[in-house]
Each structure stands twice: as C-alpha cells, then as structure tokens.
C-alpha cells in the first residue's frame, strides 16, 4: 500500500489506519463522531495527500482541458477553481475532479486517489493538442483545514493574503508558515475551509505549523471516517460509491456540471442522446425514520416494489439518524415520499429528502 508523506505523523498520533484506493490512510485518530463534530463546531485538520494532481501547461493546454471536461473550463479566470467531470464516449463518468486555472494554458487538475493512473492515461491518450501533461501527485501533499475556525487559524500564518478575502472556489499562491502553498478555498465537508497544496517535502512542516493552532481551537485531526460522514451530510457524492464509469451525470443529479452549449467535449453526443431519450435512473437523498442504518448496496423499495439501491449511507453524527443516497428508477418521486430500505432481511422506513442533509 502507498503511504503519504505524513504517515509517520499519523502513526505518532496513534491513528487507526484503513486501506483506501490503494493507500494506507488514517481512518480516525480519536473517534469518527468526535472528529466529525469538531469540524462542524470548530476546525479539523486532514491529510489528503493521497489525492492526485496533474499539471497541464503550454500550448494546447486550454484545448485539452476543454475537450476532457463536461463543465466549461472557458468560464475560468486565473485563480479560480471549477468542479467538473470527465466522461467517456458513452457518457459514463471517468472521474469527478477540480480544475485550477493558474494562467492561460496553465492548469492543475485534482483527481481521486483511486483514479490517478486511469485519469493520467485518459488525459495522455486524448492529448493531441501538444500540451505538457505531468503527474505531480508524488511530489504534492494536500492538507485541508475545514470548519468555522479555519480562517482564524490560517490567517496569522499566511505571508501576504488576507484569506478571509479568498472567496469560495478561488485560490491564491502564497506562503503559509514560510512554506510556498497553493491556498484553495474549497473542501468536502460543507464547512468554510481551505485545501493547502505544498511540496511533499514540506508536508510535515505545514502539518506541524497548523496542528498546535487546531488543538488550541479545540479542533481535531480528522481521518477518512469522518471525511465520509461530513461529505455525506453536505450532500457531496463520492466517486466509486455513488458513481462509476457506467454512471452518466444525469443519473446522479450532476447534470448541472454538463455544459453543452457552443462547446465540444468527450461524451457530449452520448449525453445529449441520453438526455433526449429520458434518464432511466435518478439519485435521491433519504433519511431513516427509525434508528436503523442503511449502507451502500441495500435494496430500496417503494410501495412494495424494488426500485433501486443505496449507494452511500451512514448514521449522521450531526443529525443522529441515518442518511444516504440511493439510485432508483426514475418515477414521480418527490420530497417526503416514503420508501423502505431492506436491512438484513427486514424493511425499515425512510423518506426522501433533498441533499444537503444539514
């Protein structure tokens, strides 16, 4: 299994580890609930160095990212971030990712850890515009600081910027505790926060600069366990759970990230065809109406009829009941409709709600 540059730090903090996408990552340091609630109340510190980063630059970079991306990269100006998808020719989702525009013909792509090799191959295969494509994942560490106190903790350590002025989905290049850092006002928790990209050799220094301030603010280091419940409460999908190569964006309610007008991209024709034909599946959010916990793979019923499957599910630490996503056959399903979820052979009541759950 691969390890991030912060593996020893996690070990010293006595983290419990888990395998995720080929990486040995911290699952939790204290408890998932405690870490989750710390992010909602104060702040959490995350090692996300398993994520993949590609640099795309030089002549042809603009064309290459536009061609791969379902969302319109042409809308980006320097210092902005775009959430987008790569789709294959059949309209299936290759990955969901962030695109950072440093400058004209200069981008950073941030992809899911389990998809680094697949995505790199995908980008390289379609690079016929002569752009320079570089996988910088190994040399790049990613530390996230998320929660209502994130700005207060980060600001005193930053050289130039007032980070409170960096708005959502924008980024700045600056120094944090003397370390050259890309500060991105993004996250996967539903809270205010930053994702900090640094050279892998500086990962420990940055973590050690932030950690005391996080603890001082009654925050927590946060593992992948709470990262999953935080993203679920925030209504954010996870590639590999909620979608895969056979899922089209419309089936998981990501159609708003497909911008077809006046542009070409891989998968466009298939997606237009699918949309015209009518989408056979749809993603819903649900909350349990008893104390049971619905998890991925559990069957979903409506009026006794099997209509689909849970794709992500967990007990919500903030709400104290089970929540999740399910993909069901398209029908007139609306908010507050009752469904049943089969858990170990027994039906448990749930109702449809609109994500985000909090």
């Amino acid at each position, binding site marked *: 299994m691969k390890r991030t540059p912060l593996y020893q730090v996690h070990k010293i903090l006595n983290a419990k580890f888990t395998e995720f996408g080929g990486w040995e990552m911290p*699952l*939790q340091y204290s*408890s*998932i*609930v405690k870490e*989750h609630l710390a992010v909602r109340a104060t702040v959490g510190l995350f090692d996300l160095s398993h994520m993949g980063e590609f640099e795309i630059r030089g002549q042809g970079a603009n064309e290459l990212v536009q061609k791969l991306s379902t969302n319109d990269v042409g809308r980006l100006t320097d210092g902005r971030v775009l959430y987008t998808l790569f789709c294959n020719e059949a309209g299936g989702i290759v990955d969901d990712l962030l695109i950072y525009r440093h400058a004209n013909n200069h981008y950073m792509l941030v992809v899911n850890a389990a998809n680094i090799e697949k995505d790199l191959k995908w980008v390289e295969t379609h690079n016929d515009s002569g752009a320079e494509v570089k996988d910088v994942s190994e040399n790049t560490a990613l530390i996230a600081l998320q929660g209502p106190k994130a700005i207060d903790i980060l600001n005193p350590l930053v050289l130039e910027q007032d980070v409170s002025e960096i708005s959502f989905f924008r980024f700045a290049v600056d120094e944090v505790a003397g370390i050259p850092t890309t500060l991105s006002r993004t996250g996967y928790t539903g809270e205010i926060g930053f994702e900090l990209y640094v050279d892998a050799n500086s990962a420990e220094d940055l973590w050690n600069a932030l950690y005391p301030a996080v603890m001082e603010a009654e925050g927590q280091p946060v593992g992948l*366990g709470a990262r999953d*419940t935080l993203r679920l409460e925030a209504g954010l999908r996870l590639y590999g759970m909620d979608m895969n190569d056979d899922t089209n964006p419309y089936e998981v309610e990501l159609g708003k990230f497909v911008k077809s007008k006046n542009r070409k991209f891989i998968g466009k024709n298939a997606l237009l065809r699918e949309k015209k034909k009518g989408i056979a599946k749809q993603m819903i959010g649900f909350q349990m109406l008893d*104390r*049971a*916990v619905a*998890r991925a793979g559990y069957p979903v019923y409506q009026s006794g009829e099997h209509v689909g499957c849970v794709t992500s599910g*967990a*007990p919500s*630490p903030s709400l104290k009941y089970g929540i999740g996503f399910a993909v069901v056959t398209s029908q007139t399903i609306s908010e507050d409709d009752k469904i049943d979820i089969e858990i*170990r052979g027994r039906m448990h009541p749930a109702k449809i709600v609109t994500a985000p759950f909090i």
Partner: protein
Amino acid sequence: MIPQNLKYMESHEWARQEGDIVTIGISDYAQSEIQDIVYVELPEIGTELTQKTEFGVIESVKAAFDLYAPVSGEVIDVNESLLDAPEQVNESPYDDGWFLKIRITNPSELDELLDADSYQAHIEAEHA
C-alpha cells in the same frame, strides 16, 4: 482491565453465569475497537439461541458487526434501554451495556469459552 469472573468468545462477547441464567455483552476491548455505537439490533424475548451463531448486530458510524451467542438457550430478558441509548455499550460494556439474559440449556458450553487470561492472550495476539 478484563473482568476475571466472566467467560469470553474469540469474537469478543462475554458471558456472566448466575445459576442457569447467563448475561451477554461485548468486552471493553471490542467496544473501544468498534467505537461510536449508534444502533443495536437484538432478538425478542423467547427466541432460542444456538451457541456460536449470530443473534444480533451492533452498528458503529463506520460499519455493522455481528454478535454471536456464547451459549445456547432461551432469551428471557433484553436490554431495551440500548434501543434509545446504544452508547451505553461504549460507556459501560460490562454493566449498563449488557445485551441479553439467556436461560442456558447446556451449562457445559460455558467450559468451551475463554477465561480472562486466555482472552487477554487472544486480544494481544489479534492486536500484534
């Protein structure tokens, strides 16, 4: 740390014998490994349990864990308070966090369980 007066399974359930009644729970080690218990599913009074077979489920935030019966017998009492307060399993695994009371059918089954020292050794082996 591990109570001497209980018997244990390798799957971390404990059994406390009082006459022909056996109380069942999970060990402190198990609750600390599972953490954040949010749901407990237990059988109804009157259910017949068979030793080493599943009788219920506990769920943490992360996953579901099966519970195995340390002995065979009829369920005569269920800790209903766990339905509303499953965190008692974390807070008090040997007392308030008990699951069931069983009237045992075959007392010799208790001899097949681990004593405290063997269970301690089992945990150490599992953790190594």
